[in-house]
């Protein structure tokens, strides 16, 4: 790949802690290589801020391979930026042109309070999992892995739903701050497997109950979540969730 360097301007949300009020600050970032990742541009800027005696910008990141789900930036209004099916850490600077101005904000949702600058608190997701996002099997209880054959299609669909990285982009993308894509991916993953059947009614009801308690909004089917999901989790999972919820709520006839 041909590479070149660019001069960019960043407008970044700065906020000292969850109680302080925040605001945008503007930083020129010269000499950015097209080969860099978006987060490496932040590394460069932070090194400069420290050298100048200023506070670096706090942002969540860890694996930088698009799988841990830690990174979380809204770039020019889009969670994880412009590339389809891509986390911020995998976004590379060849997307941008010399002279571009880029606005960077944290996830915005009542259920995800800002911790500092671009970092938010996503512990609500852990609590939704605690409400039922598992199969209750203690270590040592298992039968042979091949004892229960699982149709390949079902296994593949379960895997596609389980690919969710829990980053919260779906919530950040949704005008209602709904967590339905996240929740439905987990319900689908577990309900599509025979091992997930015994607890399926209780699971869906309790997870939805917890989601409501956390202050996430309702789903109004705009599908912004699917469009921005870095793992391209499908909204068909939400349809499955609704079916499961209905059947759990309507009756335990069988």
């Amino acid at each position, binding site marked *: 790949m041909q590479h070149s360097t660019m001069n960019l301007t960043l407008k970044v949300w700065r906020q000292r802690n969850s109680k302080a009020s925040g605001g945008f600050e503007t930083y020129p970032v010269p000499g950015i290589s097209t080969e860099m990742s978006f987060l490496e541009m932040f590394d460069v800027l932070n090194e400069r801020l420290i050298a100048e005696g200023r506070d670096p910008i706090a942002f969540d990141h860890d694996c930088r391979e698009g799988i*841990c789900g830690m990174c979380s930036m809204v770039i020019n209004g889009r969670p994880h930026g412009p*590339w389809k099916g891509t986390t911020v850490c*995998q976004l*590379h600077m060849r997307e941008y042109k010399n002279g571009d101005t880029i606005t960077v904000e944290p996830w915005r949702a009542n259920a995800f309070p800002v911790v500092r600058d671009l970092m938010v608190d996503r512990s609500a997701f852990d609590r939704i999992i605690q409400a039922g996002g598992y199969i209750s099997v203690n270590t040592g209880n298992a039968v042979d892995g091949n004892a229960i054959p699982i149709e*390949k299609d079902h296994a593949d669909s379960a895997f596609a739903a389980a690919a969710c990285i829990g980053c919260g982009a779906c919530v950040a993308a949704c005008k209602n701050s709904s967590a339905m894509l996240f929740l439905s991916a987990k319900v689908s993953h577990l309900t599509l497997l025979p091992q997930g059947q015994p607890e399926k009614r209780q699971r869906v009801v309790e997870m939805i109950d917890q989601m409501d308690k956390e202050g996430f909004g309702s789903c109004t089917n705009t599908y912004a979540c699917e469009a921005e999901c870095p793992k391209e989790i499908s909204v068909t999972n939400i349809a499955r969730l609704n079916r499961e919820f209905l059947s759990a709520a309507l009756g335990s006839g069988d």
Partner: protein
Amino acid sequence: MLDAKIPSGPLENKWNDYKGHVRLVNPANKRKLEIIIVGTGLAGASAAASLGEMGYKVKAFCFQDSPRRAHSIAAQGGINAAKNYQNDGDSVFRLFYDTIKGGDYRAREGNVHRLAEVSTSIIDQCVAQGVPFAREYGGLLSNRSFGGTQVQRTFYAAGQTGQQLLIGAYQALERQVALGTVEMHTRHEMLEIVMIDGKARGIIARNLVTGELERHFGHAVLLCTGGYGNVFYLSTNAMGSNVTAAWKAHKKGAYFGNPCFTQIHPTCIPVSGDHQSKLTLMSESLRNDGRIWVPKKQGDTRKPYDIPEEERDYYLERRYPAFGNLVPRDVASRAAKERCDAGYGVGTSRQAVYLDYAYAIERYGKAEVNKHNLGHVDAATINRLGREVVKEKYGNLFDMYEKITGENPYEVPMRIYPAVHYTMGGLWVDYELMTNIPGLYALGEANFSDHGANRLGASALMQGLADGYFVVPYTIGNYLADEIRTNAISTDHPAFVEAEKHADDRIRTFMNIQGSQTVESFHKRLGKIIWDKCGMARNEQGLKQAIEEIRALKKEFWSDVRIPGNINEMNPELDKAGRVADFIELGELMCLDALERNESCGGHFREEYQTPDGEALRDDAHFMHVAAWEYKGDSSWTLHKEPLIYDVMKPSQRSYK
């Protein structure tokens, strides 16, 4: 005297006999016993879930914002298990044999055999949790091959096996959190081990959001904090992966085993410039189908597809016909380095080799044509069908490559180069996974125990889960059975006060330096020293030089590092400073260990010790031991040796030819 506490008796009976006779703790007593677990990757999450299920009171800690983010999540290729579902001759013994041989005869027989024994239960447990492993059309589990083996025993979930296994363990952990048996502390970092009367009794942890130091008591402490690959600065590890917890334990007296045994993974995306913050792995599973080559002509600048077949050197197939592209990682890495150093490298940096999928695409395409009875079709159709198959198997990896490099790997061969990936060394532990400090355990990559001098692919996930699900739940009872009369110790105990003060003093020292260089710049310089002189090839002169350079760097760090911000708030630079300070000290010990080990074995390649054809030359007469280092104060260590005894295996020159 180091006692590994390997049970007596025949190898295949050791673990069963141990389990049959180990002491137990009754359920009522379990509820009174508290266990601290630091790190919530595969080892930590599986241990926390399992011990919580058993009824112990568990407190778990991780530095990330959720236990689901631990770096185990990034493991791509798969997990080994001796299921023999493929009927291709696999068995517990074969997995044991391959692992010992792959580790170049520097691992314990007893531990590795146990690992092979419990491997099958891991798969069962994960399936029961809902881990969506890849399946065949008949609904049964699918397998693939990995390096260093001739059977198909690797279970996988596309290129996201680590993610799926970790989510399984994470969900089991969160279930225990909901049930109240596990208390989870996220965004916390362990900064001290608290010792009372010679036993590990708790930790000091820093709340990374508020900056506050906290004291936590435990009857036992489990470190499940992963490896130390980030000592190299550039590695496939996550940005936050660090050695701090293990290093604090080491400085409190826990021996560090084989620190120089690090794994350089052969297939990573090459460095693209000075801005590089980390390296990305391309799963070893790609070597199942991809072919590795360089041009036969030095400095060949033609595009890869302009180089005709007869002018390509498939150097792994040439040198190692029996295993070909699936030789173990250390062998494949050195072979790539050898070609690049000799001037055959490709790409702008010339520090890369090709991993080519053209043949696989054609082969799979033709198979599809046969399968669906398509008769005579053109090359474009074969190519399209072949790409679809490759996409299903490795799609996420190919996409990742394209995002990072801007090149389409379905069209042009990938450029790859070795990078630091895993550390076989770690805290010394006995058969029960206990360090030499009573009550302090180390699990998963944080310990040194099962992979010898080189880990085989798909074995890290296996070991992490073996330790957490199936080993420590048995072995910890043997220690805690004596602790049932120990009431919880108040965190006002002087040992807690002193440990907290120690952590606090260190933080204040950091902040008061007010120097001129960033933490990151020190980390980069450390990484370069270690990569150049204690990386894929090492020699006496280089190692001695590296030790001098690291000592000088340490001095400079402690007098000129600049840390912005304050103590009592979120301060990622301060967190990083503590980690880098520990990496600098570890770096010195790695070089010392590499210098002391006058042989080549596995990933430890001393240039002075090689066979005429450039393979690692072991010296079993003098080095068939675990090097366990005891910390004796600033830049000072004592070496203890645990002899390795092979009752079943016959150590020989490893050959993959």
